[in-house]
């Protein structure tokens, strides 16, 4: 496990070193390029902010009312059979539908379970290993006027499911409970 841990620790510092150095060697004005991308990053934060607020407030209402506890308690026996912690269920439901909403759900899981807990790490990996399938399909097929999508949705959702299961496997592998 030592090698993999070191890989996780080194990958970001290495990228921070290699990307600007490679850019400089290729004649890119690294500072200007950084600023340009950073501005786009700021716009991205502004764009996802309303989604996160919307879902965090709604989740908060759902939780203080006690409805969330009921849902989790009801699902626990089924999910524990598959090794899925019930706390990640809201993420499973929102992830294929809205990237911003899923990010809000993840934020709430991190806050309540702790970002360095097993559930917190698992949810983080799940968010990273799946995508907003409904949204991507709607935008991509819509842009070229495809109405009959054949097996694309089934395939996309199965890929998401594979992503979730792979996340559970990877989380247990890297962070043994």
């Amino acid at each position, binding site marked *: 496990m030592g090698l993999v841990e070191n890989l996780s620790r080194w990958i*970001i510092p290495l990228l921070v070193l290699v990307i600007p150095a490679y850019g400089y060697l290729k004649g890119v004005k690294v500072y200007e390029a950084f600023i340009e991308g950073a501005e786009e990053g700021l716009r991205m934060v502004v764009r996802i902010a309303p989604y996160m607020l919307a879902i965090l407030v709604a989740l908060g209402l759902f939780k203080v009312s006690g409805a969330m506890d009921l849902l989790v308690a009801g699902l626990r026996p089924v999910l524990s059979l598959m090794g899925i912690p019930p706390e990640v269920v809201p993420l499973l439901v929102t992830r294929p539908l809205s990237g911003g909403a899923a990010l809000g759900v993840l934020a709430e899981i991190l806050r309540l379970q702790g970002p360095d807990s097993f559930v917190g790490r698992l949810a983080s990996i799940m968010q990273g290993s799946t995508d907003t399938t409904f949204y991507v399909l709607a935008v991509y097929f819509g842009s070229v006027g495809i109405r009959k999508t054949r097996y694309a949705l089934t395939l996309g959702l199965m890929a998401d499911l594979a992503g979730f299961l792979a996340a559970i496997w990877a989380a247990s592998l890297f962070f043994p409970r």
Partner: protein
Amino acid sequence: MINFIWLFLIVSGVMAAGATGQVDRITTSLTDQAAVATNLIMGMAGIMVFWMGMMNIAAKSGLMQVFARLLRPMVMRLFPDVPPDHPAAGSILLNISANFLGLGNAATPLGLNAMQELQKLNPDKDTASPAMCTFLALNTSSVTLIPATVVALRAAAGSTSPADIVAPTFVATVVAAATAVVLDRYFRRKLSGKGRGGRR
């Protein structure tokens, strides 16, 4: 669908709180969660801005094209019906490379461009071609080098090692993408099998 889920969370929340005689908690929770959301957004803004800056250097220096070239032999095998010199091939490869580097904003226009090129090869203009389905499966299970948003969110939540999920996420995305490829093969074979049966 997301409309329904959002509405359900709010309506069931307020009604359940009202029924159990704790409506006051709704008002408190509203203010609290709005503050939580603001803190999170502010907390993740810095690191998001940083990575998007870095990745723009990567895009400008041609690192994306380097990835695209490395991926070509492997990826184009999944698209037997796209001629290797067709512009669709280039757009598909650049889109996957952009996703790999976490350049979501660069990936989307490239992906839309790929769809347009694939549509030119598509004999039936309102039905998805197998190549389109393969492309979208690869796109939605896209392998990511740095899940920058998740790392930023973890940092904002006070993680002691926000980046320790990078390697496991990479492993999980590779497994998911491989599964998508296998399933895609299965669906394609089923489809062409049906086509032959129809002609006979």
